[in-house]
Structure formats: structure tokens, C-alpha cells
């Protein structure tokens, strides 16, 4: 790397110790003091190395001798140091890395570690930084984490402009979305057009789409782990941006220099004000906006103890006033809240622990008013979560073990208010559940070429009272008093064992073969009938009738780096059967439904595919090409006459090409091209007429046309493809102030990509017309970003 330089430190340790011989340390950002997660430490002479853990720490077991360590991290200048270990004396290295100017360099590199993609046992895992996300072309001038990850192989976008993502044939509820360890149940704003992640607050993003290590679980398809900035403990920094539909601002700085720092960030959309000129008079009475806040604080008590507290609060607000009757109003608000507190402790040179307590909540409130009458409908889900993880590093073994516990409270629906003389106080039974897990994993070497990561995770889910199990007749009406469970009384318990195994065999220093296997249970399920995540969609627990979802995933891959790691390539194939999958009957009623489970049907899923990935890491031109061939089906006895059908987001071919070219110190150009086979969709195959009548004014016959469906997802929408470009211009860059402009053009060649199809019977022309709706034509946008 041109910008890198060698920094030489000589450590000579003379004291005799015949037992312990290790190099350990912490790697931090030289300017902010933030720990660097996943930085690579490589011992040049031994062609071995390690990476820092989530607290920025590392440890290497090493024999006496003189060694050269190379420390590298994306967006930072490489550092090389020389270490001499004599007579087994431990060496502790507190290290700092200096950031490069990200906007100028490497803006589109995924992963950063020399050879790490080849040597580690991890597969199906990628990392992104917030800076990488910001470098991509964007719509409305809004960089977005979730849109960025859909450019990776095996991860598919939910639709035009949307943030929904689908990993290796899994549904949207099969992704565990974590923000600083807190589960985010609805990670989108604006019905999915933007995610809840403010890129100014984000530090890095990790996606695990297979080969899930034993310390993760709870979702079948993927883990999206978003870590926020901890707060600069050296100096005050303000970041911000002004986009077409929203603006954002973040401030971070020290509370006690070198020890403690904070970060606060906020964002608010003004899309309602922007849209106002385009709306009709009636529509202007409606309003829609969202906002969110992040706050984070850390305190380093000593080298061995550190606490980090993170909080998030965000809401979408929609208000509606009837254009014809001003007494009729409707307000909807929904959003997530999350708080997590983490304590890191180092017991000794070998043993570390993380203790995390989390509270997270998602809720939806609908308020209906008509004159003096009105009522409120609310629903939601909240978790209390406690987990404790240990990391034990001992010679050839890197071990992790721990336990977690979650107390879930599901609130499917509460209605309160008054209409006429009717006092409304109705509630669908709340549901409560314990979810616990223990795990152990060990990564160890077998010889010089084979590294194995073996783990076992034990899970236990119990639905408990208080709960009244209602009994319904064949017309969905409650009969009898039902069966009552006392507080804490178990209703149903599901234990499970989840073996995890991953192995890497090094063919040579730049080539490896990898394989992984995992089995995962999922106890929470999203009740939705649409492809997009709607705020009213409910999360429901496993119960007596709803069995836990279960998936196996087998993956094999070959990894190869070229030209001193300038080029990284990989091919991965996966096979993923899924059981106890849930769908809803066509036309299922999810709204305030006491007997929601009666609307569900249960079946199986299968996904398999092969993913090709090649990226260029260095030079003026960087970027990647990803191609996935895959097939995803579902089979339900009660749907599609029992025949398997394509999953909605089955996409045979999926291509992403991402490129960045550094023109000069001021200008960078980015391009993204995506191509995907059209989504499978269900279209009517017949129609019929109903409700005969007459138009009272014209005397003409009047009829209602109803569409009829007998095959699911049997039709393919046209292929989706799009080219986006953006130019980043660094207007000013000094020690005290940075300013840059991002000019993006979304859908450069104005492709009309299908959003949905609808039909209109044209009685006059005696034919049915089909129309395809597409959302975004060529769409320029501009955003200004600043930092001081």
C-alpha cells in the first residue's frame, strides 16, 4: 500500500521466564482512542497471526526469538514492529494505528486483512465500515447500511429502493439484526426505504450468512451486527450531512481524556415538507416523518476493565386527516428503543470476559379519532437480555464459551377508548417466553495446514404463563373459558442442540479450502403476508402449535489471493434445508386477530446455490464483482396444491459490480451495477364477476371483477438491473475542518424496473390491461457531508 509506512519499535526483554511466552496487546485508533475490532497482527517469519477481539485486544503464543509483526486495519496505515522475545518473557504491546484519509483511499474495500480471508476458519462472513457505505452511490443522498450489504453475494435486496434483505433463501425474519448487541425487530424507516442505522454513528458492520459460530444463534439465515462508535476520548469531533430528504448530526468527544468518551447522533427527515408542493390539497393534511437518536458512552477504568453503554430511540410518525370529514383523524407511530450496557473485564493474560445487559422494544400505536369517539390500538414486543461471554486464549486453542438469557414479552394487541356508550378495553393475550442458550467453541490447529473451529450451542425456549389458551370453534369464535396458566407456569418447552463446525485447509500461503456446517433453531417468527416489512407486522413466539423453525446449512469454498493480496477471490457453495417454515393462508387477517395461529400454515424450504466473489483491494481502482446462482423453494401441503413453489425472492442469477476510481485528491468516482433475475410473483389465472347491479345514473349494468389465483409465484417479473454512479468531491480538508459533496445518479440509464404489476378490466375495449409500476427513474441527488 502506497500510503503505508514502516514504523519500527524494538522490544528487547531480558528477564528469564521459562513458562510463559506470549505477545499480547490492545490496538486503538491514534486519533479517537477507539478500540479497533478485527485488526490483523501477522508474524511475518512464521506466516501466522491473529486478529483483535471486539475490545481491540489480541494475544499470540510464540517461542523465543526475534519477530516482525505487521499490524493492519482497513483505513489505517499499516504498522510494522520488531519484537524480541527472550527466555519466554511476556510482551505487552499497547499499539495505535493512524487513520488514512478514508475519502481518498480504499473506500470500497471489503475486509482488510492480509490473507485473513484465506487462513481463517470463517466463511460466509464479511465486514464493512461506515466509510465504505458512505462511498457508495445512494438514492436521495442517503447512505444506508442495509442497502450496502445487499451488494454482497448471497444477500438479496427486497425490492426497489428498499432496505429489506434476504440471505441465502431465508425470509426477512430469519436475519438477526443487532445494534450494539440489542435486537432491532424492525430495522427500517419509511416502510423500508431507509434503515434505522445512521451512518454517522456506525463504526463497522459484520454480516454472517453461513458457518455461524456457536456464540451466535436465534435466527436461521444471518447475523447482522452493527457496532456504533464508542466516542472519541481524545478530542471533540462533529460529523454531519445534509441530504435531500433528511439531515444528520453527530458529536463525539472526551469526558476524561484517554479514559472516557461519548457519542451522540441524531437524524430527522423532512420528506413531508419536501413532498408538500407535489401533493394535492387533500393529501397535504397528511404528514409523515421519522427521527432517531443514538448515544454511546465508554469509560476505561483500567487496562483490565471497561464499560460501554449504548442507547437508541427512533420513531416513524404518520398522521392522516380525512379530506372529507375533519372530525376523522388517524395517527400511527412506531419504532424501536434499545439500551445496552457492556462490561469488559480481563482476568489475566489468557482469560477475558464480556458481560452485556440489554433492553430492547418495538411498539406500534394507532390512534383513531372521530369526533368525541376514539380508540387506541397498540402492539409490540420487548426483551430483557443478559449474556456473559468468556474468551480463553491458550497456545494452540482459542476458546469462547458463555451463556445468554432473554425474557420476551409479546403484546399482540391492546385496544382502549370509547365509542358511543361502549368503553373499549380489549386485549389479545400477552405472551411471555424464556429463551436461553449456552455455548462453547474452540478454534485449534491440527498440524500446520488444518484449522478447525468446533462448537456446540444448547438452546432452550419456554413459553410461560400468565396465559389463557382460548379455544375457538370452526368459525374462529371463542368458546368456553379456555385453559389458564399461572404466572411462570410452563406452557411448552423446546430444547435444542446446535452443532457448529468449520475448518480451513491451507493448500499454500494464498490458497485454502474451507467447509462449514451448522444447525440453527429459531423461536420467534414474523407474522406478515407481504414482501415488505410493514410496521403492523407482529412477532410471535413458538407455541404449542407453532413449532420452532430449524435449518441446516452445509457450505464448502475455495479461497485464493493473488498478487500479494491485491486481489481476493472465493467460490462458495451452500445447501440449506429449512423446516417448520411459516406462511399465512391467502387473505389471512393479521389485524387484532385473537386466533392468529389458525391463519398459519407450516411447511419446508430449500435453498442452494454457488457464490463467486472477486475483489481488488489496492490501487486507484478498487471494488468487487459478486455473482450468485441460486434456487430457493418452499413446500406447504395447504398451499399451491401441495406442490413446491419458488420463494418470492428466489433469484436464479444475481450480479453486483462495485467500483471506485480515485481520480485525484479531490475527486473520486463510484459505480454500482446490479442485475437480478426477476422476482417470482403470483398473478391471477382467472377472474369472475360478482355482485350484479346497475349504475343509478347511467342505467348501465354494474359488476365487480374478482381475480382468481391457483398457482403461487408462478410468474417471473422482468429482470432487475440498474447502474448508479456517484462523484465525491472533497471541497476542503484540513486538520480542523472537512467538507465533501456527494453527487449521485441513481438508475443512470433509466431502467424501468418492476415494482409490481396490476390489471384493469377495460369493458369498453373488451380486454384486461396489464400495467407495470416502477418506482424510480433516473434520479439525481446531492448530499453535503462535513466534519470538524
Amino acid at each position, binding site marked *: 500500500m502506497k500510503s503505508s509506512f514502516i514504523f519500527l519499535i524494538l522490544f528487547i526483554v531480558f528477564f528469564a521466564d521459562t513458562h510463559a511466552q506470549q505477545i499480547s496487546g490492545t490496538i486503538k485508533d491514534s486519533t479517537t482512542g477507539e478500540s479497533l475490532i478485527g485488526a490483523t497482527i501477522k508474524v511475518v517469519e512464521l506466516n501466522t497471526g491473529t486478529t483483535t477481539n471486539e475490545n481491540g485486544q489480541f494475544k499470540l503464543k510464540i517461542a523465543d526469538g526475534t519477530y516482525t509483526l505487521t499490524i493492519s486495519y482497513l483505513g489505517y496505515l499499516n504498522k510494522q514492529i520488531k519484537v524480541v522475545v527472550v527466555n519466554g518473557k511476556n510482551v505487552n504491546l499497547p499499539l495505535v494505528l493512524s487513520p488514512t484519509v478514508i475519502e481518498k483511499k480504499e473506500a470500497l474495500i471489503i475486509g482488510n486483512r492480509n490473507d485473513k480471508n484465506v487462513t481463517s476458519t470463517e466463511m460466509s462472513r464479511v465486514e464493512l465500515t461506515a466509510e465504505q457505505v458512505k462511498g457508495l452511490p445512494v438514492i436521495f443522498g442517503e447512505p444506508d447500511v442495509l442497502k450496502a450489504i445487499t451488494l454482497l453475494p448471497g444477500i438479496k435486496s427486497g425490492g426497489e429502493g428498499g432496505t429489506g434483505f434476504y440471505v441465502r433463501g431465508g425470509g426477512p425474519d430469519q436475519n438477526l439484526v443487532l445494534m450494539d448487541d440489542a435486537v432491532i425487530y424492525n430495522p427500517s424507516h419509511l416502510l423500508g426505504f431507509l434503515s434505522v442505522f445512521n451512518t454517522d454513528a456506525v463504526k463497522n458492520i459484520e454480516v454472517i450468512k453461513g458457518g455461524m459460530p456457536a456464540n451466535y444463534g436465534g435466527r436461521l439465515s444471518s447475523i447482522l451486527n452493527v457496532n456504533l462508535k464508542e466516542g472519541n476520548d481524545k478530542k471533540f469531533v462533529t460529523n454531519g450531512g445534509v441530504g435531500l430528504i433528511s439531515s444528520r448530526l453527530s458529536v463525539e468527544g472526551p469526558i476524561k481524556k484517554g479514559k472516557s468518551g461519548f457519542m451522540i447522533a441524531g437524524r430527522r427527515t423532512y420528506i413531508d415538507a419536501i413532498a408538500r408542493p407535489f401533493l394535492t390539497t387533500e*393529501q397535504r393534511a397528511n404528514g409523515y416523518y421519522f427521527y432517531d437518536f443514538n448515544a454511546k458512552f465508554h469509560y476505561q477504568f483500567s487496562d483490565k476493565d471497561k464499560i460501554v453503554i449504548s442507547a437508541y430511540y427512533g420513531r416513524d410518525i404518520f398522521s*392522516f386527516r380525512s379530506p372529507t370529514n375533519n372530525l376523522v383523524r388517524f395517527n400511527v407511530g412506531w419504532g424501536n428503543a434499545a439500551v445496552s450496557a457492556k462490561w469488559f473485564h480481563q482476568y489475566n493474560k489468557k482469560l477475558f470476559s464480556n458481560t452485556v445487559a440489554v433492553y430492547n422494544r418495538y411498539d406500534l400505536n394507532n390512534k383513531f379519532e372521530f369526533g368525541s369517539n376514539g380508540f387506541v390500538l397498540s402492539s409490540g414486543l420487548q426483551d430483557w437480555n443478559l449474556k456473559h461471554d468468556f474468551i480463553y486464549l491458550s497456545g494452540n486453542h482459542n476458546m469462547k464459551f458463555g451463556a445468554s438469557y432473554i425474557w420476551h414479552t409479546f403484546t399482540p394487541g391492546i385496544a382502549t377508548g370509547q365509542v358511543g356508550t361502549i368503553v373499549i378495553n380489549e386485549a389479545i393475550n400477552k405472551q411471555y417466553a424464556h429463551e436461553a442458550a449456552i455455548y462453547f467453541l474452540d478454534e485449534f490447529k491440527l498440524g500446520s495446514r488444518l484449522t478447525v473451529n468446533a462448537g456446540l450451542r444448547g438452546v432452550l425456549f419456554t413459553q410461560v404463563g400468565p396465559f389463557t389458551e382460548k379455544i375457538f370453534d370452526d368459525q374462529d369464535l371463542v368458546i368456553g373459558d379456555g385453559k389458564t396458566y399461572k404466572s411462570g407456569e410452563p406452557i411448552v418447552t423446546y430444547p435444542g442442540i446446535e452443532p457448529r463446525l468449520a475448518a480451513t485447509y491451507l493448500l499454500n500461503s494464498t490458497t485454502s479450502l474451507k467447509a462449514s456446517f451448522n444447525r440453527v433453531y429459531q423461536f420467534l417468527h414474523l407474522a406478515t403476508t407481504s414482501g415488505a416489512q410493514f410496521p403492523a407486522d407482529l412477532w410471535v413466539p413458538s407455541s404449542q402449535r407453532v413449532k420452532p423453525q430449524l435449518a441446516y446449512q452445509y457450505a464448502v469454498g475455495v479461497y485464493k489471493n493473488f498478487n500479494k493480496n491485491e486481489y481476493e477471490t472465493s467460490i462458495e457453495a451452500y445447501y440449506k434445508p429449512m423446516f417448520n417454515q411459516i406462511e399465512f393462508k391467502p387473505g389471512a387477517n393479521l389485524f387484532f386477530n385473537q386466533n392468529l395461529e389458525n391463519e398459519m400454515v407450516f411447511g419446508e424450504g430449500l435453498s442452494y446455490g454457488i457464490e463467486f466473489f472477486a475483489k481488488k483491494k489496492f490501487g486507484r481502482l478498487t471494488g468487487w464483482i459478486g455473482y450468485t446462482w441460486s434456487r430457493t423453494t418452499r413446500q406447504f401441503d395447504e398451499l399451491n396444491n401441495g406442490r413446491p413453489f419458488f420463494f418470492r425472492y428466489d433469484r436464479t442469477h444475481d450480479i453486483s459490480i462495485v467500483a471506485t476510481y480515485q481520480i485525484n485528491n479531490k475527486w473520486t468516482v463510484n459505480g454500482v451495477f446490479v442485475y437480478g433475475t426477476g422476482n417470482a410473483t403470483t398473478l391471477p389465472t382467472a377472474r369472475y364477476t360478482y355482485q350484479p347491479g346497475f349504475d343509478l345514473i347511467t342505467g348501465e349494468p354494474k359488476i365487480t371483477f374478482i381475480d382468481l389465483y391457483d398457482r403461487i409465484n408462478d410468474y417471473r417479473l422482468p429482470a432487475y438491473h440498474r447502474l448508479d454512479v456517484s462523484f465525491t468531491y472533497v471541497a476542503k480538508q484540513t486538520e480542523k475542518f472537512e467538507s465533501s459533496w456527494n453527487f449521485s445518479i441513481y438508475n443512470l440509464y433509466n431502467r424501468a424496473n418492476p415494482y409490481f404489476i396490476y390489471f384493469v378490466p377495460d369493458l369498453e375495449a373488451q380486454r*384486461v390491461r396489464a400495467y407495470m409500476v416502477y418506482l424510480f427513474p433516473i434520479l439525481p441527488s446531492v448530499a453535503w457531508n462535513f466534519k470538524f
Partner: protein
Amino acid sequence: MRTTIVNIILVIVVAGLVSCEKEITVNLPPGKKSIVVEASINQQFPNLNYVYISRTLDYFNPDLSFNGVKDALVFITPGEIQGRDTIWNVSNRIQLFDISEIPGVDSLLAGFNGVYFNPLLLPQIGVPYKLEITVENSFISGVTTIPNVVEIDTVFWRTEFDEQEGDTDVFLTFEFVDGPEQNNYRLIVHNSQNPLMVGWGTANTFREFDDAILNNGRRPYSFFSPFNYSDTVNIYLNSIGRREYLFWDSFDDAKDNGGPFSTPVMVKSNITGAIGSFTGYGVSYRRVILR
């Protein structure tokens, strides 16, 4: 409501940028053939006791006529409840005939080619009725009952001058007493000088609702959209059974199929052998002149 909200949000989110659409050609394989039945009985208006039989068409079949089915044998039989059993006495059954072929009956519904009718059919509240149809080698049957009538109790309105339109808007409300039991309702509003006499499809508004949330008390029903001053409004508050309610609820969703946020809806038929419904309406009727 959900679709409405989503559409409004979509308009706000992408105002000025969306609503791009183009006509396309879609090739769909032929669909499954089926008979479709709409059978209605009520205790008050004999003209609204009819059975409409049609058949499904391939989606892009150029023939958009109403596709009614003639030459069907249609019977409705009143039953008698004895304990847990219902006794159907064939001697009481009434045959319905193609309305275009009944002497002395001159109905506009004849134009639909498949409407069956008998002026002698006078159903009663609380009595079970069985529908039997034999057509094109198919046998179709269904059972319904006309539930007890829930009376429209009070009707009142307020007026408001509409400055934009320069006329007077009338906001109409009626009230009824909802009992403690689970009822299901279907509201039909007919904005005309005369009561509804020709097919439920002639009315302006159809809406079904239940009392899952608003139960047991005096319940107002306010119309969101205003009427015009001096309009004559015919209100039908029809009590229907649970199965019939589930059909009409799914029918309402099926009318609004399509779009990115919805999935195809299949109606929940309450008859066997065909798609459709057999609905007994317990009609409460009020006619008001808004002055």
C-alpha cells in the same frame, strides 16, 4: 385501511418521483375452471332474494361479458331444527328460475344471463335454508340462516358549509344497540329516491364489520364522506352469520388485490362445489331525506 395508509405514505415518500407505469403484455397460462355462485336471501325485500350463477374466465379472455350460466337447476329449501339436527323436507323446497323466463317479472337483472329468482320465496328469520344447484355436471350446495335483526335505532346528521364547493355537506350518523354476543354486520348504503330493488350490486357502499373490539353498547356509525343536502339515503344494516361475514370480509380484500404490500387473496367461500356464498341477511332498513 392498511392499503390506504401504505398508499398515502408511498405518495409522500416518493412524491413527484413515482407513479411511473407502463402497459405491458403478460402471458398467463389458462386457469382452473369453476362455477361461481352468489345467493342472497332476506326477510324483507323479496326482489333481493336471488341466485346469480356464472363461471370463471381465463384472465385475458377477450370476452368481458358477465358470463352468466343458464340451464341450472336451483332449489332453496327451508329446514327445521330438531335438537342438533336440521330436517330438510323436500316437499317445502322452492325452485328458482332464470329470471328472464319468468312470466310477469321484468327485471333488469335478466341482462346478466344467470340470475335465478322466484317471487314466492319469502324467507324468515331464524330458519335455516339450504341451497342446491345442479349445473354442468356439478352439484353445489350451501346452508345459511337469516340472523335476528339489529335495528337501526337513531339517525341524525350535522351540516357544514363547504366553502370550496359552495354547497352544504351533510355528515350522517346512525346508532344501533350492539348486544353482548358476537355479531357480524354488513352495511349497505343506497343513495337514491327509492329503496334498493335490483341487486345488491346497485348500492353505492358495501361494508362489513364485526364487534370484536366495539361490543355491547350503543354504537354510533358515522359516514366519513359527506352526503349532499336534500339527498335521500336508504340505509340497510344487515345482520349476517359468521361464515357469511368471513366470506364478505375476504371478498372485500379480494376486490383490492395487488400492489407491493399485499398478497393475493382467495375468498373464503361458504358453499361447496363452487366459489361463492349463500348469505342470509337480517335487514334493518331506514330511509332518510337529509334536510
